[in-house]
């Protein structure tokens, strides 16, 4: 992983993939340090049938189903517009086989403005590739020199083992976590979502994310982007404390387009109250004893 350059202290906020369209809400995107695209697949996808969103008592369910315009339109039409934001761009890559992931990584390699690839290895709303996460990472590693972040599912009890496996396969970092599968019933006791189940995000996901980051940060030295239910600076601080080097905002963006600026301010106050001068100093402070020496988190400020 190259040395991170030009990242001022406190540059820690990303969006969770699929939770922000920077082309329709550039003012929200510019509050972030990095913009992460919605997951792109080789071919265009219409996504899942409605109903796609359901609110629950503890968060929300989505079943969007990786709706996206496909890799070619991303490269030809969207990336040139995204570059005008002046932010490093991470492209979230999806697929239905290791070869599909790898082909997109090859197409992105050397693309101006693309600072990293996040491999969406854990969408709960579509069929999974038959290969393991590590096999997909290995296939992609062979096709690109871009930093590869593996986005893992918290549904596995063995997430730390998966983290070690993707590290061995060549991942440069981890994105933790994706949503958990959930279901909501309507008053007539029928599933609300068109596909029945969907991905649960929001406040219910925070303890799950904290546990995943905690476990993985003890298992590998890879830099971690933590996400799951972050709504405040305190939530962001907690993810840093269990071992994340940066924090991504997801569901909170739907209800509060100004959340990144607010959470950045709140996090600064939280850090100051602890006598810490940067987010980096908070990384891992929830752990007793020494953590593995953590590689520098490269958010890809190549612009």
């Amino acid at each position, binding site marked *: 992983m190259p040395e991170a350059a030009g990242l001022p202290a406190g540059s820690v906020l990303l969006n969770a993939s699929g939770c922000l369209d920077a082309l329709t809400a550039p003012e929200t995107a510019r509050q972030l340090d990095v913009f992460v695209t919605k997951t792109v697949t080789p071919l265009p996808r219409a996504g899942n049938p409605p109903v796609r969103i359901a609110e629950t008592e503890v968060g929300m369910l989505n079943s969007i189903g990786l*709706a996206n315009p496909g890799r070619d339109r991303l490269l030809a039409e969207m990336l040139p517009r995204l570059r005008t934001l002046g932010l490093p761009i991470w492209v979230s890559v999806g697929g239905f086989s290791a070869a599909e992931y790898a082909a997109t990584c090859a197409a992105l390699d050397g693309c101006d403005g693309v600072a990293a690839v996040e491999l969406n290895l854990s969408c709960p709303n579509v069929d999974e590739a038959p290969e393991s996460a590590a096999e997909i990472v290995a296939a992609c590693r062979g096709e690109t020199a871009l930093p590869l972040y593996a986005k893992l599912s918290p549904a596995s009890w063995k997430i730390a083992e998966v983290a070690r496996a993707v590290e061995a396969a060549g991942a440069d970092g981890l994105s933790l976590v994706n949503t958990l599968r959930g279901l909501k019933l309507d008053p007539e006791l029928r599933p609300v979502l068109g596909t029945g189940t969907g991905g649960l995000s929001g406040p219910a996901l925070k303890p799950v994310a904290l546990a995943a980051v905690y476990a993985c940060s003890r298992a590998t030295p890879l830099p971690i982007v933590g996400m799951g239910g972050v709504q405040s600076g305190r939530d962001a601080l907690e993810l840093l404390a269990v071992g994340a080097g940066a924090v991504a905002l997801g569901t909170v963006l739907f209800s509060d*387009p100004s959340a990144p600026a607010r959470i950045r301010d709140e996090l600064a106050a939280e850090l100051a109250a602890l006598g810490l001068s940067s987010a980096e100093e908070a990384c891992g402070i929830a752990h007793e004893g020494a953590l593995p020496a953590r590689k520098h988190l490269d958010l890809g400020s190549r612009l």
Partner: protein
Amino acid sequence: MACGYGACYGCAVEIDGEWKRLCIDGPVLQAAA
């Protein structure tokens, strides 16, 4: 609809094989070409 500003794709409706986001492509859409 979760967001109302084009981020979530929760309000998408299919019109002539193309999915439109009601929040930013609508709120009023032609039902068919």
